């Protein structure tokens, strides 16, 4: 049984069907990639899983139990933590305080230890607002890990990072999966990163599930290649 299962989930915004009858499963311990062109519905799916949005139909279950009756602030207690596409830190609070808030709903490792592990010990008492972008993203990751999640949802963790930072990120994701005993669902446009770390890749296009398979299978899939070449971001087409 998958740790996370999404079954026939649909969510509309006015006339737009942002997520259209999508089903997918993420097995415990997996790093699963979720890719698709802009507007495919990836972030909406994250927002549905974390209950910021309610699906119009379908079922989402975690560890065999429905998530749909869990209010948003209880999601983290069920063992699901996330990062946001447009970094959502607490800008006026210090790095340490950001991580302490991360353990509000469910504690785990000591915040100091966590900051050390993510290379943030030099900025512990700095306000989040003044940090470099890459540091903000690492802080957001640290905050998510502070709740000792079983499932970590990462929404474009590589966006805006330098080439070296992206390389490090791949290694970091693998490392935290091992040391935190995590399952990861990763939304990313950076194909080298996804194809490098993911065990399995799910593809969305216009809200629909387009394909699923190993990174190699997905890269060969003609429908996936078509979706990416037809989009406005050909630079992100799978190599």
């Amino acid at each position: 049984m998958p740790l996370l299962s999404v079954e026939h989930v649909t969510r509309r915004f006015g006339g737009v069907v942002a997520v259209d009858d999508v089903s997918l499963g993420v097995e415990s311990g997996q790093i699963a990639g979720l890719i698709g062109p802009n507007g495919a519905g990836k972030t909406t799916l994250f927002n549905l899983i974390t209950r910021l949005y309610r699906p119009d139909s379908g079922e989402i279950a975690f560890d065999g139990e429905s998530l749909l009756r869990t209010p948003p602030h209880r999601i983290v207690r069920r063992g699901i933590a996330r990062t946001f596409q447009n970094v959502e830190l607490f800008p006026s609070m210090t790095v340490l305080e950001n991580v302490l808030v991360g353990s509000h709903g469910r504690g785990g490792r000591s915040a100091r230890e966590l900051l050390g592990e993510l290379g943030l010990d030099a900025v512990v008492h700095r306000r989040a607002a003044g940090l470099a972008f890459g540091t903000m993203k690492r802080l957001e990751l640290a905050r998510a890990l502070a709740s000792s999640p079983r499932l970590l949802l990462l929404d474009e963790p590589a966006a805006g990072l330098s080439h070296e930072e992206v390389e490090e990120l791949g290694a970091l994701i693998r490392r935290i999966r091992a040391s935190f005993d995590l399952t990861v669902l990763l939304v990313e446009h950076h194909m080298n990163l996804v194809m490098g770390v993911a065990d399995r890749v799910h593809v969305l296009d216009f809200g629909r599930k387009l394909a699923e398979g190993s990174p190699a299978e997905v890269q060969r899939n003609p429908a996936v290649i078509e979706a990416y070449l037809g989009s406005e971001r050909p630079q992100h087409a799978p190599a």
Partner: protein
Amino acid sequence: MSRVVRIAAGLVAAAAAVALVLVLPHWLSDARAAEFARAGCFFIAILGLNLLTGYTGQISLGHGALMAVGAYTTAILTANHGFRDLWTIPLAGLVAMGAGFLLGLPARRLSGLYLALATFAFAVAMPALLKRFSGLTGGSQGINLFDKALTRSTGALGPVHVLGRTVATNDFLYYLTWGTGLVLAAAAWVLVRGRVGRAFRAVRDSEVAAASSGINTGFYKMLAFGISGFYAGVGGSLFVLVSNWFVSPTTFAFDKSLLLVVGAVVGGLGSLAGMALGALFIQFVPSWAGNVSNAPGAPSVFFGAAIVLVMILLPSGLGGVLRKLTEPLTTRL
């Protein structure tokens, strides 16, 4: 290291504030002491408003009405139920806390201007409510403890004996309000640095991130309204004592609510020390404005101009100036 210095500087500043509060009455006339006591009530209410607006990001234009709840709790318990006025102060805080929770209910759904209007409606309705339930509140006559409970009104009969000293009534009221204010300021200082205060600030900074971190944002908004209501209630309770043990519906007309917001903003939201300056501002600047000219409407215009001037010259309020003055000290050390 710099943190240690900053904490030490904070303690020194707190000690200096306590010392200043202690010695100030020696230089004040009796009438001035009464005015400072009144400012002390505003200080306490504004501390509460600051927790709500400065730290949790929720607007309230209804805090004058929460002060009224505290004030009437004290007046009713002392006048009709045999309580000594001083013992009703914490009770007034608790009753206003309950009212604050209720006032916070709309905050779970509304924000910004809509929340401002919902809370303002409470401020506007309060005097009418007080008149409507005249059996309890004395209607538009209000409640005069001086008549109804003279012996239970501490200091109403003359100087007060505390700790083996004899203290003039207005000095006593001054020490009572500012002493209470300093204790509640220390409590606020501790609160905003702990788990609850972090949750408040998280709600202010990003509601989605707060919710995703496990914070029940609706609950914490209501809690902030409740705690803030406690402060307003204590301030309102003391306001009865400093108003010659008298309260009526006009004591807390809606302009008090606006005045408190002015005090909090001028003081500098998010700065606890600034709140004392904000309280002094709303206590003294309107009467100074009256001294400049008492042509019809002129005092209000001068008071308004003073507010605008502070906001233009000091966008982060008087508290921001305090911070700027002390920052070089703490960073250089």
